[in-house]
């Protein structure tokens, strides 16, 4: 009996693989024709005849939780306006956690060819991939009709083959949040060069505090510092060249930049054990006064302005850009607008849904909404709005610091993950943790990243 059952197991597997490989080729063609089109067509036929019949579209958003309640309120207002403008329209809101939506849910829906009509999406590299498969709605003509195409700071992350497939909801920059009160007490000044930044860090360390709060459990957090460093040492343009093979990660200047980050780790500028900390931990380090400076995206200002989250620290936090290597050099800062909304290509097949989407865009991307986002949520506008107007909108000291930082920018660049393949991002994430953990030095780590880069370049 025993022998038989074993045999059974084995033969099952063989049969399984044989059958699958055998019908492989047929499956191929089946997969091509099956998804997307069918359900949309039937809807279409039914709705064209009776025009004010109720119809529904779904908006997948990520405004989940307390910290995003302002964002949600704004979305709800836009939904109301849109419903009022389009007869028969009912908008269904579907809230999903941002990471879950980006990494799992939206990808699953895309694979099945059936995303919601409107969905939260990251520009690069996600939107381009979806657009390439024809799953996203080309917005170019809608934007032209509404006359807002030229009103955005940048639509590059959402552009694929000169067509626009999504709209960013806001923008951000990366720089240092710092404890202003502490700086004043100790007579520290906002640094103007990297060397000065190191002197400040040294002074803070000598005082028994942690110079930089950093949580490296998620590698993108320390990589903010690394990315800004290599953009200073090797120039912001170098990142564009990795994908084409024009530049290499092993460039001596990139090595120098990563070695600088490594040096800071070795000198104890970060808290020991930070490889195990969550994103929220580093903010708590600043809020409790344990750490003095923190590299983070400008979006973090909402935490430091909220008494429920920051407690006594509200009003005591300032912001500055990472300074250049030499005094007086132009300031180079990561600045992008990579998160926003995209639309299903199936919308194009139904004029009423297209009308609803157009109306949604018209109501969502206005100067008024952008300023409201800035005022309530501290999110920098994605649309062109003058600095003066921004300054007038929010009189908060931290926001004023951030506006000042924006005005100082000489050269800006998009975050590296928008410019390299996902596999390279994985290798870099692994690498920076290895450097922080003392497993590899900067040169060795970048060799590994370059190897991953070459492998990724070869497959395309």
């Amino acid at each position: 009996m025993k022998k038989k059952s074993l045999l059974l197991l084995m033969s099952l597997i063989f049969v399984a693989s044989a059958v699958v490989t055998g019908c492989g080729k047929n499956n191929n063609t089946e997969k091509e024709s099956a998804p997307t089109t069918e359900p949309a067509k039937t809807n279409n036929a039914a709705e064209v005849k009776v025009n004010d019949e109720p119809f529904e579209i779904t908006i997948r958003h990520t405004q989940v939780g307390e910290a995003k309640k302002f964002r949600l309120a704004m979305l709800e207002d836009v939904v109301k306006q849109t419903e009022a403008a389009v007869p028969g329209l009912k908008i269904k809101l579907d809230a999903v956690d941002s990471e879950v939506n980006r990494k799992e849910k939206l990808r699953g829906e895309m694979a099945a060819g059936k995303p919601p009509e409107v969905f939260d999406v990251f520009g690069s590299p996600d939107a381009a991939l979806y657009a390439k498969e024809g799953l996203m709605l080309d917005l170019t003509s809608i934007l032209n009709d509404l006359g807002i195409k030229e009103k955005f700071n940048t639509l590059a992350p959402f552009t694929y083959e000169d067509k626009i497939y999504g709209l960013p909801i806001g923008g951000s920059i990366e720089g240092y949040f710092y404890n202003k009160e502490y700086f004043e007490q100790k007579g520290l000044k906002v640094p103007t060069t990297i060397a000065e930044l190191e002197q400040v860090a040294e002074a803070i360390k000598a005082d028994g505090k942690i110079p930089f709060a950093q949580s490296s459990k998620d590698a993108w957090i320390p990589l903010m510092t690394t990315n800004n460093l290599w953009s200073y040492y090797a120039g912001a343009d170098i990142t564009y060249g990795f994908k084409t093979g024009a530049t290499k990660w092993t460039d001596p200047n990139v090595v120098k930049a990563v070695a600088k980050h490594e040096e800071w780790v070795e000198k104890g500028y970060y808290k020991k054990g930070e490889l195990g900390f969550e994103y929220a931990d580093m903010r708590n380090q600043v809020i409790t006064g344990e750490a003095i400076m923190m590299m983070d995206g400008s979006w973090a200002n909402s935490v430091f302005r909220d008494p429920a989250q920051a407690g006594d620290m509200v009003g005591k936090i300032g912001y500055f850009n990472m300074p250049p290597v030499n005094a007086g050099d132009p300031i180079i800062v990561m600045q992008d607008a990579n998160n926003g909304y995209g639309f299903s290509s199936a919308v194009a097949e139904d004029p009423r849904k297209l009308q609803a989407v157009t109306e949604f865009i018209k109501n969502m991307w206005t100067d008024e909404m952008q300023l409201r986002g800035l005022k309530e949520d501290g999110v920098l506008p994605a649309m062109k709005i003058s600095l003066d107007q921004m300054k007038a909108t929010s009189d908060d000291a931290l926001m004023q610091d951030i506006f000042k930082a924006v005005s100082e920018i000489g050269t800006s660049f998009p975050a590296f993950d928008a410019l390299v393949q996902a596999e390279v991002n994985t290798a870099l994430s692994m690498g920076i943790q290895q450097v922080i953990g003392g497993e590899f030095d900067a040169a060795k780590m970048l060799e590994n990243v370059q190897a991953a880069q070459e492998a990724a370049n070869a497959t395309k």
Partner: protein
Amino acid sequence: MNKALKSPLTYILFILPAFILFLGFFIYPIFTAVNNSLTSWNGISKTMTYIGLDNYVTAFNDIAFWKSVRNNVYFIFFSCLVQVPLIVIFSLLIANVKRLKGLYKTAVFMPSIMSTAVIGILWGFIYNPDFGLLNELLGVFGVEPIYWLSDKKWAMISILITNAWQWTGFYIIMVLAAILAIPKELDEAAAIDGATGFQRAVKITLPLIMPIVSVVIMLSVAGAMKAADIILVMTKGGPAGSTDVMATYMIRYAITSFRHGFGNSIAILIFVFTMIITVLYQVLIAKRTERIEY
């Protein structure tokens, strides 16, 4: 007599509903996965390019993949060599106490009630290097703070301990149910013959519960091979991939990198490795009577 238990219609009706669901949710997906694992599909594209066994070759040539396999092996060893003996000992202890039995039975099961996400948050606090319960406790004995989740040396064992904390009680309940199912007369007869509690446990109870212990071992192995949630919530495979197991390796290098075909090949490898281990276990270790088979 045989006739009554040989009613084909009843047989089919009894088997069919569960079996159809089983086919749909287990067998069909695994076939699809085998198919996808032979492609370079990115998970979104409508076309698939067949690339033969390239994905498997890639995995086999990747040091990081073998590191993740090694962590799965640690998982299995920890489950079988540490957890299972503890499970048996505590089950016997609970079965033999007269007082507070209900309390013990209820309490040991509590950790298995919590969702893994919650457990991750909870143990994050316990392992916290600064104010965590564990370091405070060790500090009493003069031990320097240990960076449990951020030190490569400690991260894996920390996860194993948490995982054991979550699931030991769950298996205790299963073994306990088997112990309590043993007819009282057997035990009483032995007691009259003058056997001590320990002797009775080893000579009578243990052999009788071996089949369920075998099930527990099987489930532990299968669980160890599939493990992902607990690692995701505690370390996300970090620091620097040192706690990656095959399932998290799959997520890191395949799913988040848009390499769906590669991801499916890892899923198949998880399945095949699990099967090899269980078959080996059944053939080599389990005694005839303990085998879980027909």
